[in-house]
C-alpha cells in the first residue's frame, strides 16, 4: 500500500498500528505509515472479496 501523505510504499506487515492503549482497541482498521505515521484505512474485507470476484470475471490476476 501507498501512504497518501508521504508517498512511502509499505506492506501491511510493516505498518504501525498504535492500537495498544487506544480506546478503539483496533476497531478503527487504520494502518499507520512507518515513515510519517499518517493513517491509511485498511482495505475492508468486502472490497477485497469484490475485487476477487471482479478479478475472476475479468481474468485479472494479482502480480506476484
Amino acid at each position, binding site marked *: 500500500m501507498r501512504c497518501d501523505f508521504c508517498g512511502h510504499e509499505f506492506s501491511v506487515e510493516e505498518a504501525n498500528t498504535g492500537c495498544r492503549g487506544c480506546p478503539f482497541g483496533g476497531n*478503527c482498521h487504520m494502518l499507520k505509515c512507518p515513515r510519517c505515521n499518517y493513517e491509511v484505512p485498511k482495505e475492508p474485507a468486502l472490497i477485497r472479496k469484490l475485487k476477487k470476484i471482479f478479478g475472476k470475471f475479468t481474468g485479472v490476476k494479482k502480480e506476484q
Partner: protein
Amino acid sequence: MSFLKRKSSCHGPQPDASCGAKKVALVGNPNVGKSVLFNALTGAYVTVSNYPGTSVEVTRGTMVTEGQSYEIIDTPGMYSLLPMTEEERVAREILLKDSPDLIIHVIDARNTERMLSMTLQLAEAGLPLMLVVNMMDEAERLGIDIDVALLAERLGVPVIGAAVAKKRGLTEIRHNIAHYTPRKAKLPAYSAWLEKDIADVASLLGGEYALDRKATALLLLQRDQTMMEMVAAGEGENYPVVEALLKEKTFMRRESFHLDLSVERKGIAKALLEGVFRAPEESRISMSERISTLAVRPWTGIPLLLLVLYFGLYQFVGVFGAGTLVDYLEEGFFEGHFNPWITVLIKDLIPWWAIQELFVGEYGIITLGFRYAVGIILPIVATFFLFFSLLEDSGYFPRLALLVDRLFKKIGLSGRAVIPMVLGFGCDTMATMVTRTLETVRERIIATLLLALAIPCSAQLGIIMALLSQYPRVLLVWLACLVIIFLVVGYLASLVLPGSAPIFYMELPPMRLPQLSNILTKTYSRMQWYFVEILPLFILASVLLWIGKLTHIFDMMAEEGGKVMLILGLPKETAVAFIFGFFRRDYGAAGLYDLQTKGLLNPRQLAVAAVTLTLFIPCVAQFLIMKKERGAKVALAIGLFVTTIAFGTGYLLNKILLAAGTL
C-alpha cells in the same frame, strides 16, 4: 534483539565468503530496485539480521567477480543523509560505521532530478560513490532520454544506466565495482551565504570524521543529533566554540534553513541535468506539477485552499450532505415515517411507560440515538469522508503541510503537525494519538491542546456547516472565532512552553488524478469504522439519558446548565446539547441541530452556541487518549483550559454581538 536467518541452500552451510572482502553498500529511496539489484549481484545465499539495537533488517550477501570477493549490503530505504526515521538512521549508520569501500546509489530514472539531491549529499560527504540510474526501460517508454556519460563527466563519478529487473546494465555494474578507484566528485557550489556558513563551521572542526568536513558541517547546521554527539566527542574542549557558532547560525537561519538548502540542492540537480535529461515537451511541466507549484506558494496556495474549503466543505458537505441529504433522511424518512411507525409499534408491544421511553421516548435509543446516528451523522460523515478521500488521493495534504509550515512555526508547530490536524477533522481522538509522532514534547502538547480546543471532528463540523449555511454572516463569525482562537492560543502556548522551533522537511510525492476506486474504498472503510464505533456509543448515551430522565438527574443537570446558558445569552434548553456534548462532540452538535429546527435560536444565539460548543470540552474518548498520551495532569489541565476558553469566548462573543447588533 538480533537474529540471523539464511535462505536455504542445497549445499548446506557455506563458509563466510565475505571475510576480508571489500564492502559495497546499496543505498537509495525505497522502491527504486535496490533489492532487485542486490539479488542479481549476490544470488541466493544471503544473511538477514536486525541492525544492532534496532528492529530494522539489513540484508548482506556475497558477490564474486573477476576473482575478487565483495560483501554486498542492502541498506534500508533512505531519502536524505539527514535521517528522519529509524530505517534512515540505520542506513546512515552503515555508511558511517561500516565504512564501505564503495557506495552504489540506486535511483529511479524517471525521477532523476528529485533523487539526484541525495547523490549530491553522498558526493559532498566524500564517500566512494557510483550512481546507478535504474528503470531506464520505464523512462524510455515515457520518451525520457538520459545521457549517462555526460552525467558521469559532470559528477566525476561512474554512472551506469540500467534496468536491473531485466538484467540490463548488470555486467557493467559488476565491471565498475571490480575496477572502482576512489575519486573526488565534482560538485557545484551552493550560494555564497550558505558556503560561508558551511566554511565557518567546517573551519572550527579539528577532529577526524567519517564524512567530509563540508557534509559534517551541513549536518551540524541542520541540528543532526547523532552528528552533534560525534563532533562533541571528536572536538573535546573545542566543542563549546563549535556549539556556540552553531547556535548563532541556526538561530539566524531558523525560519527556513531546510527549505533553502533543499531549494539550492534542487537548483544544482537541475543545472547538472541540463542537456543530460531530456523529456518529451508535454511531460516536462505536467498539469499535476503546475497544480503542485500553485498549491505550495502562499499567494496562490491560500486562495486555492479557500476554494477547496468553499466547494468541498461548505457546498458539498455543508449544503448538500448536511442540508439536502439530512433533510431527506432525518425529516423525510425518520420524522415523517419511521419514528411515528416505530413509536406506535413499540407502544403496542410494550405496555410499560418506562420501557417505552427507553426505546421511543424523548431520548429513546431508536427515536434519538438511532435517528442521530443514521439520519444526521451518517450522511454528513459520508460526504465528508468522500471529500477527504478525494483530497487525500490527489496528494494535496503534503502540499498543505508545506503551505502552512511558516504559519505553524509561529505557534510552536511545523508543517508536520498538519498530519494530526488533518486527521483531527476526521476524528480528534485518533489524531491525538498521532501527535506522539511529533518531534518534541512541546509540539505534542501544543498539538494536543489545539486538537481538543479548535479542531471540530467530521460530524460536528458537518452539522455546524448545515446549521450555519443558512446564515453566511454567522458562519463567518464562527470561522473567524475558531481561526483567531487557534492562532492566539497556539502562539501563547508556544511562548509559555519552553523549547526551540521545530524543523520540517519533506520530499513531495507527485500529485495525481484521484482514482474513483481508491476514493470509494477509503470512504467506505472510514464510514464502516465510524458507524460501528458511534452506534453503540449513541445507544449508550441514550440509555444514560433515559436513566437520567427517570431519576430526574438529567432534569437537574439541564436546570443547572440552563443557568450557565442564560449567562451566555442562550435559551436554557441549549444546556441539553452541551450535556450531549459530554458524550460525544457530534452528539452535542446533533442536539444543537434539533434545537435549531425547533426554531429556538436566533442568529446571534446560533453563533454563540456553535462557537462555544465547537470549543467545548473534548469527548470522553478523546479525554482518555489525552490522559494516556500526555499524562493525567496535562489532560486535566487541557480539559479545564478548554472549558474556560469555550465559555469565556461564548460570553464575550455574546456581549460583542449584542453591542454591535450585527446579527
